[in-house]
C-alpha cells in the first residue's frame, strides 16, 4: 500500500510535540484533556455505533421509520448523540438504488455513528472520482452495480451528515439483532460495500 501517511517522516511528530508543549506552557490546553479526547476517538466511537442502528432498523420497522425520518434523533435513542440532536440523514439502499457518500471539499463524515474516517475516504482519488465516476470507484471496491440500479452520490458540502442504511442480506432472517450488527461493515454504511453473511474486515 502506498499511503502518504507512511511517507511522512518523523518531522510532524516533533513539530506536534513542540506545539503541544508550547500550548500547555501558555495554559491554552490541558494535556489530560488531550489524552481523554484521543481515548474517545480511539475507543468510544466507531462503526459499531452505526452498525447497531442498521441492525435495529432491520428488525424493527418502527425504528427504521424513525431512522429514515430523523436519523439524529434515532441515533440519540442509542446515546450516540450527547445533546439529543445531530444533523444526520439515513439513506436507504434498495434493489433499485444504491447510495454512496463522499465529501469532495474536505472530509466530512458522520463521526458520532462511524467514528473517524479511513484514509481512503479523505484521499484525493476518492474525493475527486466519487462524483464523476461512482461506478468505477465501486468496481475498485469489488462492487458491480447493475445498469438498472440508480446510483445516488451524496456530496457532504454542509453540516448535514449521511449514513447509508444497507440492504439486509438474504439468508439472515433467523439471525438476532446482535448477529446482524456484527455483519454490518463501515464500508457498507459509506456505500462502498454491501452487507454479506460472510461479513468483512472493513
Amino acid at each position: 500500500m502506498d499511503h502518504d501517511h507512511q511517507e511522512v517522516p518523523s518531522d510532524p511528530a516533533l513539530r506536534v510535540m513542540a506545539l503541544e508543549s508550547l500550548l500547555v506552557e501558555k495554559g491554552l490546553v490541558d494535556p489530560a484533556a488531550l489524552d481523554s479526547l484521543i481515548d474517545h476517538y480511539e475507543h468510544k466511537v466507531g462503526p459499531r455505533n452505526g452498525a447497531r442502528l442498521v441492525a435495529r432498523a432491520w428488525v424493527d420497522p418502527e425504528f427504521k421509520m424513525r431512522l429514515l425520518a430523523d436519523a439524529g434523533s434515532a441515533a440519540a435513542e442509542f446515546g450516540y448523540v450527547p445533546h439529543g440532536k445531530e444533523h444526520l440523514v439515513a439513506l436507504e439502499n434498495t434493489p433499485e438504488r444504491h447510495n454512496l457518500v463522499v465529501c469532495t471539499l474536505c472530509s466530512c463524515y458522520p463521526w458520532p455513528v462511524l467514528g473517524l474516517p479511513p484514509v481512503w475516504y479523505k484521499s484525493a482519488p476518492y474525493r475527486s472520482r466519487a462524483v464523476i465516476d461512482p461506478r468505477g470507484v465501486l468496481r475498485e471496491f469489488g462492487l458491480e452495480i447493475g445498469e438498472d440500479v440508480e446510483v445516488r452520490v451524496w456530496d457532504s458540502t454542509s453540516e448535514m451528515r449521511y449514513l447509508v442504511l444497507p440492504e439486509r442480506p438474504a439468508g439472515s432472517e433467523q439471525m438476532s439483532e446482535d448477529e446482524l450488527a456484527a455483519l454490518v461493515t463501515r464500508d457498507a454504511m459509506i456505500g462502498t460495500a454491501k452487507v454479506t453473511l460472510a461479513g468483512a474486515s472493513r
Partner: protein
Amino acid sequence: MNGVHDMGGMHGMGPVTPEADEPVFHEPWEGRVLALNRATVALGKWNIDASRHSIERIQPGDYLRMSYYEKWLVGLVMRLEESGLVTPAELQSGRPAPRAVKATPPLTAKGVAARTGERGWFERPVNTPPRFTAGQRVRAKKINPTGHTRLPRYARGNIGVVDRIHGAHVFPDSNAHFRGENPQHLYSVRFSARELWGEAAAARDVVYIDLWEDYLERA
C-alpha cells in the same frame, strides 16, 4: 476559492486504495493533532468554517503532498498565529514569550467527557420563508468567490431539482471570515449525472449536493 481542495470531478489522482484493518491513528502524533484541534476550538477564537478555510489556504503543492493530519497541523498553526494566541516568535522558539500571560485551559479532562460528542448545532431560526420548494428546478449560480465557499465548482451553472430543505443553517461563506453567521435556508439539490458530466455519464445516476440559498437561482 477555486482551490485544489475542490476536487470533485478531477482526473489523474489514481485509484482508491483501501487499507485492511486500518488503525484509527497510524502514528501517535496524529491523535495529538486531532486532540489539539478539538481542545483549541474551545478557546472560541475561530469556528469550523474558519478551520476548513485555513486548510484550503495551504499551497496547492503542499496540500496534495501532505497527509491528512499534517494538513490539520499546518492549519492549526495558521489559526493560532492569525488569532494572536501564539506569536511567530513563540512558534520559532517553542517557548512562551517573556511576560506572556498564562491562560487557563477552557477544556479540561473532566470537561471532555461532556463535550466530545458535541459537534455543534448549525441550524438557526430565520424570519424569511424558503425561496425554493421541494420539486422546484434551481440553478447553482456561476460564481467564483475568492474566499471560503461550499459551492463546489462542478455544480456551478448546472440545473438541479430541490429534493428537501434542511432548515436554515449558518452560512460558511461569511462565518469562515468572521463576518457573521448569516443563516439561510439549506437545500439538498439533486443533479443528474448527465447534467453535471455530460452524455457519457450513466443515465440513471444522480448527485445530491447541499446548497445554501445564496448559491441558487430559479431555473
